[in-house]
């Protein structure tokens, strides 16, 4: 790449040369998720035009179904950009749905919401403290927490679903609309917007990226990298607990299985979106498209009539392909 730059510079001059140079220097790998999204979208639109893929209802459905993954993945973007991982998000969502449902039937809607968020706050703090203060790898801490959270959720409910009969809650977090727009879409938009601005436009966001990119250099620059690591895991926990309430609202119940396996979808969405698995680079908007791409694939494969085993194979292959295209060098 260096050589080509030099040689173009040497030949110099001309608007078309300049354009060619810009084109060559354009790091298209950063945009592979958007290209991939468009390609897959057009592919399904043509292939499945008779199955109603393009109908407004179906498109809204894709958004709705990916809302929880999108929300979780926004938090995960911070964790991965900081060169850590959070495997506990799926079971945190499950535990949060259960706690929300139980507190809600006992004491009402506000305590219910607070109980759900408290789950994320507590689990996120424990994850963060173990990683940043004791230096235990986040992979292990959150792997253990994955089991603990889902176990607690199953234990306190004796594996029984906890119905939510509060319509306000269900409308607010689930099936309701804000004006003409489905609530789930509004929630994901809020999380994506805040997440994107904070990561790219605040001091905290820059420090997360610097810590993930080169922790030693960040330390030498006076950044408290331990605190940053604590904070990203706390954020991830709280955001996951909010996603749990979205499950609870949409499915009008709390259940320990809600969110199970979401950590993998969220990680896939983040990596597809161009966030480096090794930290230092991250894009929340990319993550949104990563989540949407996964939703798009799921939806298209169902409409195409593949059964769930075939869907898993195709989905896995597409994710590997996309990540392979997006990798450096």
């Amino acid at each position: 790449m260096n050589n080509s730059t030099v040689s173009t510079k040497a030949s110099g001059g001309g608007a078309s040369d300049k354009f060619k140079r810009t084109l060559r220097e354009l790091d298209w790998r950063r945009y592979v998720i958007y290209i991939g999204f468009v390609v897959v979208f057009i592919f399904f639109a043509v292939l499945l035009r008779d199955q109603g893929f393009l109908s407004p209802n179906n498109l809204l459905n894709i958004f709705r179904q990916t809302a929880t993954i999108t929300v979780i993945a926004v938090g995960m973007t911070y964790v991965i950009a900081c060169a850590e991982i959070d495997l506990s998000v799926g079971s945190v969502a499950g535990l949060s749905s259960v706690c929300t449902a139980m507190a809600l039937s006992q004491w009402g809607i506000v305590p219910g919401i607070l109980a759900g968020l408290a789950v994320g706050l507590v689990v996120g703090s424990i994850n963060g403290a173990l990683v940043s203060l004791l230096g235990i790898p986040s992979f292990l801490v959150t792997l253990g927490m994955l089991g603990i959270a889902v176990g607690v959720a199953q234990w306190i409910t004796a594996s029984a679903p906890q119905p939510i009969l509060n319509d306000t809650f269900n409308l607010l977090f689930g099936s309701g609309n804000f004006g003409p727009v489905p609530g789930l879409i509004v929630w994901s938009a809020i999380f994506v917007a805040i997440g994107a601005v904070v990561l790219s436009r605040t001091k905290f966001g820059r420090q997360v990226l610097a810590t993930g990119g080169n922790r030693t250099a960040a330390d030498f620059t006076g950044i408290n990298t331990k605190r940053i690591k604590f904070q990203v895991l706390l954020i991830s926990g709280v955001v996951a607990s909010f996603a749990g309430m979205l499950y609870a609202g949409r499915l009008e119940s709390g259940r320990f299985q809600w969110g199970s396996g979401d950590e993998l979808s969220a990680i896939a969405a983040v990596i597809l979106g161009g966030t480096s698995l090794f930290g230092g680079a991250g894009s929340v908007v990319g993550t949104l498209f990563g989540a949407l791409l996964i939703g798009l694939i799921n939806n298209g494969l169902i409409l195409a009539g593949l059964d769930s085993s075939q869907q898993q194979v195709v989905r896995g292959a597409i994710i590997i392909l996309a990540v392979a295209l997006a990798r450096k060098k």
Partner: protein
Amino acid sequence: MNTEDPAVEMRSISKGFNGVNVLNDVAFEVRTGEVHALAGGNGAGKSTLMKILQGVYHADAGSILVAGKPVDINSIQDAKAAGIGMVFQEFSLVPSLTVAQNIFLAAEPQGRSGLIDDREAVRKAREIFADMEVDVDPRAHVSRLGTAYWQLTEIAKALAQDARVLIMDEPTASLARHETEALFDLVARLKKRGISIIYISHRMDEVYRIADRITILRDGRRLLTEPLTNVTPEQIVEGIVGKKIEGQLSYRQRDDYSATAIPVLEAKGISSGNRVRNVSFTLHAGEILGLAGLMGSGRTELARVLFGIDPLESGEIWIGGKKAAITSPRRAIEAGLALIPEDRRAQGLVLDHSVRDNLLLPLLDRIRRGPLLDTAAGKSLSSSLIKKFAVKVAHPGKPVRLLSGGNQQKVVLAKWLGTEPDVLILDEPTAGVDIGTKSEILDMIRELAKAGKAVIVISSEYPELLAVSDRVLILRDGSITGDLKRSEIADEESLQLAVQGV
């Protein structure tokens, strides 16, 4: 021990890289059971010569004879087979394995079943250590052992491969004094067993103590090979330093800095670990203080303590006449300090991030408007820094890893000077930087002092220290052994001698 046969003979070795001759017709010979010191300044060709002997590089011309027979060394395996072992300066052990497993790595003894016989490996390792007359537990995990034991393991590993010639590159740099003594005893025992040792060191006292002969390289040629009884330390230093003309690096008499009554920075008997011991000094505004010392003398460690990276175990740091509690880099920055770290790639920069993001990292508070960062302000601030420090970059959005070493160093400098520190500590500011950029950086340092900043320069390049420093502190084993005004130092040679303490 006194057989005069050369264990290794390298005849008229020449080697060039990209058309630049690094070695020119060099002859080098080590006798059986001899400790042969190899000396020379930076870029004299020592490490290239040794890499040819180890099979890392292949000589363009010349031949190598081992025990009188010509050998063709094309790979590290060839070198090992010829009986040449290397004790690496940066150790080549796998920390998670045991001592015995490391010693026999890739040459594990096998039992009848074809599986690795760990018991046999431990037994053999014990034998080797017994021969070396040192006490190391072969079953200990390397990660749990101190550096001295790593080194012993390295030596045992070489001996296990029947090495007859050991290359030791600055082996005492990371050792404590009593460990150094133990190493010298071991070297003497190895010598008795007829093992030859090529000893690379900048420490004159060590060379005199254990080496039989010395070869000095200068500018890719052999200057001399003599028994140490025939050469004086002054001759060796002169041989290493040479009569280099470093026009751009010459000292320029500066106006006397305003020796204000209250020093900007004062260290009062500070200690940390065993590399910083009871260090006291003062630094005034407008002054450039050089820190000179051999590798491992505690130069970098002193900078780390001052900047709050390593804990201060005793003593006090005073800034501007007030006692300061520097417990973290953040506190140090708040107190007006900045550190340009030794390793810019690992410690100074986030390589994959853009030049702009790197520059702004310590300055984020300055471009904040409410909770958000002002992108436009960030762009103009970074552009002004790029211009001020003449960083050559096509676009500030380019990743900093694409820049040359010199330009990367300018980015680190600009990043820190943007914080407008009162005290700037530079650790090896011109390492791996071309000569042009080097003099630019030295000029910048002079400018900063002129503008009233206090500067500490750590460097292993004496011409550079002499070119900028108003005063030079000599560090040895973590303590200050000399505090010299620039005018008291006649030339590079006398600084070398002061650092060596001979």
